[in-house]
Every structure is written in structure tokens, then in C-alpha cells.
């Protein structure tokens, strides 16, 4: 079975050649490997490869899978290339920069209005979560295209608060 993986942003083909427990596979241009794989707990895979023991813990998130091994995080999207569509392949529009809430929280203050010119490092919005106020700043000089944040509003992580252009 051939799969298209994106591992921490980099695309890598993956080929599963034989099923577990004696799982044969090839990642990218690497050699063919054989691993002993068991699932002792839900979402936990015990993998023996070249005599080394690994415990891989898999989390399912809206953005894909997160695999944690020995404290290291891998964000991995798995696609079956036969089903792949280009819907998600669009990039950010040139020049426009969306400033999004980095964590869930509450908008405390909106410091700019649509049409304002802002300088690099200038504060745009103050968001508070867990009693910690964070000022979101402009990465570079720009004009404020739109302000969707309202003071007092509760926002989710990733919600766009201000758009710069």
C-alpha cells in the first residue's frame, strides 16, 4: 500500500509492504525496513526496529495525526494518493497576513482599526488566557485591511483577529 505522508511539513512517500506484526515498509528513498509492531494500549504502538524499542503514541487532531516518541513530536498527515484532491493545496494570498489567536482566550483590547497604518512590532490586539495577557504584534509594516476581533469576545485558537496587507 502506497501512502503520501507530510511529516512536519515535508512530503515523503511511504510504502507498506507487509502487515504487522512483522511489518515491512519503506519511507522515502530509505532502505526497506522490518519492524515488529504491537498495540498494547489504545493509540500506543510498541515498535521494535533493529533491536531498539520505541513507544509511539498517536493523537488524532483536526490537522492530522501527532505522533510522540520519547518526547519528540511529529505532525503527520497521511493521504492515500488515490483519493488525494487539491482542495487543501491553496497557499496564502500574497501580501495579506492574517493575525490569528495563538491560543483560546478572550480579547481584552483592540488597538487598531481598519485602514490604520502599523509599524513592525506595533501591538494590534491583546488576548488573555489563563490570566496571561499577550499582545499580538505586526510582523512588519503594513496597513490594517480588516479587524474581526471585538473586545470582550471569546476566541478559539487559530481564529483570525486582524488582517494586514
Amino acid at each position, binding site marked *: 500500500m502506497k*501512502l503520501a*505522508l507530510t*511529516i512536519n511539513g515535508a512530503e*515523503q512517500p*511511504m510504502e*507498506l509492504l507487509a*502487515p*504487522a*506484526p*512483522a*511489518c515491512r*515498509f519503506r*519511507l522515502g528513498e*530509505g532502505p526497506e*525496513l522490518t*519492524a515488529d*509492531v*504491537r*498495540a498494547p494500549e*489504545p*493509540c500506543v*504502538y510498541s*515498535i521494535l*526496529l*533493529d533491536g*531498539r524499542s*520505541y513507544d*509511539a*503514541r*498517536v*493523537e*488524532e487532531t483536526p490537522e492530522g*495525526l501527532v*505522533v*510522540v*516518541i*520519547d*518526547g*519528540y513530536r*511529529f505532525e*503527520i498527515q*497521511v*493521504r*492515500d494518493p488515490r*483519493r488525494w484532491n487539491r482542495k487543501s493545496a491553496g497557499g496564502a494570498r500574497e501580501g495579506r497576513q492574517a493575525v490569528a489567536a*495563538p*491560543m*483560546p*482566550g478572550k480579547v481584552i*483590547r483592540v488597538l487598531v482599526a481598519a485602514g490604520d497604518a502599523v509599524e513592525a512590532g506595533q*501591538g494590534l490586539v*491583546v488576548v*488573555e*488566557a*489563563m*490570566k*496571561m*495577557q*499577550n*499582545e499580538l504584534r505586526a510582523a512588519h509594516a503594513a496597513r490594517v485591511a480588516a479587524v474581526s476581533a471585538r473586545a470582550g469576545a471569546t476566541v478559539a485558537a487559530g481564529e483570525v483577529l486582524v488582517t494586514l496587507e
Partner: protein
Amino acid sequence: MRRCGTELQPDAPRRRVCWYNSGCMFRKVLIANRGEIAVRIIRTLREMGIASVAVYSDADRTSLHVRMADEAVAVGPAPSAESYLRTDRILAAALDRGADAVHPGYGFLSENADFADACRDAGLAFIGPSPESIRKMGSKTAARLTAIAGGTPVVPGTDHSVTLEEARAFTAKHGYPILLKAVAGGGGKGMRRVDRDADLESAFRNASSEAARSFRNAEIYIERYVERPRHIEIQLFGDVHGNMIHLGERECSLQRRHQKVIEECPSPLLAEYPEMREAMGAAAIGAARAAGYYNAGTVEFLVDPQRRFYFLEMNTRLQVEHPVTELVTGLDMVRLQIEIAAGAPLPIRQEDVTWRGAAIEGRIYAEDPYHDFLPFPGTLTRLDRPMGPGVRVDGCVYDGWTVPMEYDPLLAKLAVWGASRDQAIQRMIRALREYDVGGIRTNIGFFRQILEDPALRAGRLHTGFIDEFFEHHHAPKPPADLEAVAALAASLHATSAVASNGRGETPAPTARASSWLTSGREGRLR
């Protein structure tokens, strides 16, 4: 008898012997707090045979302190101003449940003199110092004056809250950098470092508004910024009979956003210069005596590179990092607090205090250290705690628990003891490797990374250590062999979903054996 703590005054003559062994211990204690510290207090209460009453906000109904306590009372909606800071509701809960005493924990009402007063007026013992001592030490500006009166050296600054104009005048005279600090503050909230005039106004407004939100007091004062200081604090215990001892120091120089994240006992500096422990211990006791202090308290000092120390503030409560002192001295500090509040004399003298080995604690937070330590609330999908020799976890989390976004993101404190500082650090790294929290981000991996740092291992610490660390370090790169293993795990996990629902959708977060695993198992069964 009940209510024995309420009549205690440090200078009042004692008519009645009133402590644990004479049958005068509290029978029921309300904990006016949440999270790990409420759990910590419940544990000692249970060991002492005292019933515990938890309070909780709407966000905390299923939190561990509520589940562990003998009794629990709802005190309001999620925002702490409407629940954990509501003196009236908390006292009503204590009286309604028939509690004798209130333990305030840390944060919330713990350093609120009016709350301590209200407890006394309600006939409840407050497990902490007198309201008078809190007033002398609770406000940072008052504490400076008290320390000055006690002859303890302080950092140059204003002895009162300032307006923006007064702040400008201070900087015109003393220059930059300065620290803006909340008069009622603690834990770095409402605190800002300012390096130039251009930043003063916005920093002042942000600090003031954060202070108002956190402490219901927007007042700000100024201190000259001491470059590259260490933060070393002295743990004190006094009883109502006038005895006072110190339990040595804790080094808390490893901070992010001016908040401690790793603490240790002993301080590597004082281990090298033991005469400093005597000097700082004496200075701390002097300042505390000037406030007529009893129960647990901590005097915090800044220590500059020339090893001069300055009084920073006094925390008139139990500290978050108290476990490292407990591990090295062998004492249960919550038990001591309760006994003292019930009128008992200190069970040990200064010469009985011994320090054995070394302890180190890491505060496990729901946050992303590699993205500016931003808080990361969410639901825990997995939890494996470290175990084994010398490991202690003070936590409030369990598998499936949702970290509320209304409160401090502290999940647990991992503390370890070792025969030496090196052994304690090695043990800490080992324990962190066993610690697995899924579903949210934590600082566990960051702790492993920073504990390997040669300067940290050599004990060369200062409060800007973590900020400087990030100037030279990024998230550690995983060893090369892990990528293939991760890819394999993800592929096996995902293909089961592709096979089972046929659409390749993100599967629901439930346990699902990969079809590749299943077919392998079936193969073996045949």
C-alpha cells in the same frame, strides 16, 4: 474544643494549652483553593485524620480536588472573581459545613488580609499569619518599608504606588532599565520590564490593567532592575509563642515571564558559600519578626553577581515550590502550618533542621515553550506519570480531564530527590522521560532539554537564564531513527480509518486497532 485558632495572637498570653496532642486539633478544614495545591492540602488533612471541604467553580466540578475531598461546595461561576475570590460564599460554605479552619493555599485569597480578618470574625481559624502581618508584608510597598525597618537591604525603588507621570520622574532620575510591579502582585502578573521611554506608557497601561484583573488592584510601583540576579528565597516557620526558625533556601532563578518554573534546594550558590545561608536566614527572620509573623512564610531575595542580597518581597503563605524543602528537610510543611494554626509550638528548633541531599522541582504547565510559552488549554487524551525511586508528583490532572482556560495552566509539579544535585538532575531527566501527557502541549520536553545545559549543570544561574537559553537553542531535533518509526506508527494508525470508513476522513479519537495490525494478528491465529 473548636475555634481554638481564632483567639491566637502572637503577643497574647496563652491561657490554654491548645494543640494536636491535647485533643484540640481541627476536625474539619475548608480549602479555599483549587488545583494541585488543594489536592496537596487534602492529602495531609487525610493523614492527620481531619475532614476536608473543597470549594469549586462551575468549571471545576469534575476537578480532582472536588473528587478527592470529603465534602465539596459550589461557590460560583468559572471566573475566579465570581467564585474563588468570593469571601462571602467561601465563608458561608465553611460555616455551613461546620469547618473549624480555612486553608487558603497560594494565590486567590491567600494573601488577602481582609479575608483573614473575615475568617477571624466568623470564628474560623485562618491557616496562615495574622491579618496584621499580611498587611505589613502582603503589599509589596508595605513590605519594603517593613524590611527597611528590620534593617534588611532592599533594591532601590519607590516605596508607594505611582502614576505614569511619577514613573517618568523616577526614570528621569534613576534611568533604565526599571521594573513596573503590581503593588498587590505575585507570580509575575502585572509586572513589566521597561528599557526605554518609548515603551513606558504602553507597558504601564498593560501592567496596570493586568494587575487590576488579577488582583483587583491596579496600583503599580517601580524598582530599579538588578542585572542578572539570582532569585533565592528563605523558608520561615514561626509559631504563635514567638519561636521562629528557617528551613534554608530554595533557588528559583529559572523563570519564564518572571514566573518560576524550576526550583531547587539547596541553592548551588549557597552550597558553595554556606555562610550565606546563615546571613540570609538571619535577615529573613529579622524582616519577619518586624511584621510580628507566625505560620509559614517565605522571604524572597535577589542576589547580584557580587553575592549581595536584597529583600524582594515576603510571601505570607505556602509557596508553590515547597516540596523541594520538604524532600530535603523531611518535614511536612502543610502539617506544620495546621499545627501552628491550632496553637501548637514549633516541634523543632533551628539546630534540629538538617538538609540532606538535593531536590529539584519542575512545574508542568499546559503551554508551548517553543512558541513563547503560550498557554495551551485542552483535554488530556493520555496521561502516564513518572514513578520509581525518589519521585514525587503533586498534580491535579487525570486522563480525560479538560484544562480550564480560566485559571493558571499549572498541571502538576514533578519533584525528585537525589543524594547530590547531579543525581537529582539525572533523576529528573529520567522521570521526565516517563512523563507522557497527550492531547495538549506541555513544557516536559523543554525541561529535559534545559536540564542538559552545561551552565545549568554547573549551577551558573540567573533569572534571565531561560530567555538567554532561547537565544541559542530551538526545539531539539529528534534523532534520525525516530522519523521512520513515527511514519510507520502514523501510517498503520491511519490506514485502519481509511479501511473502516472508506472515505479517508479524520477518524474519531477512539481506540481503533489498525487493520494492518489486525490482519497480522489474524495471520498468527491461523
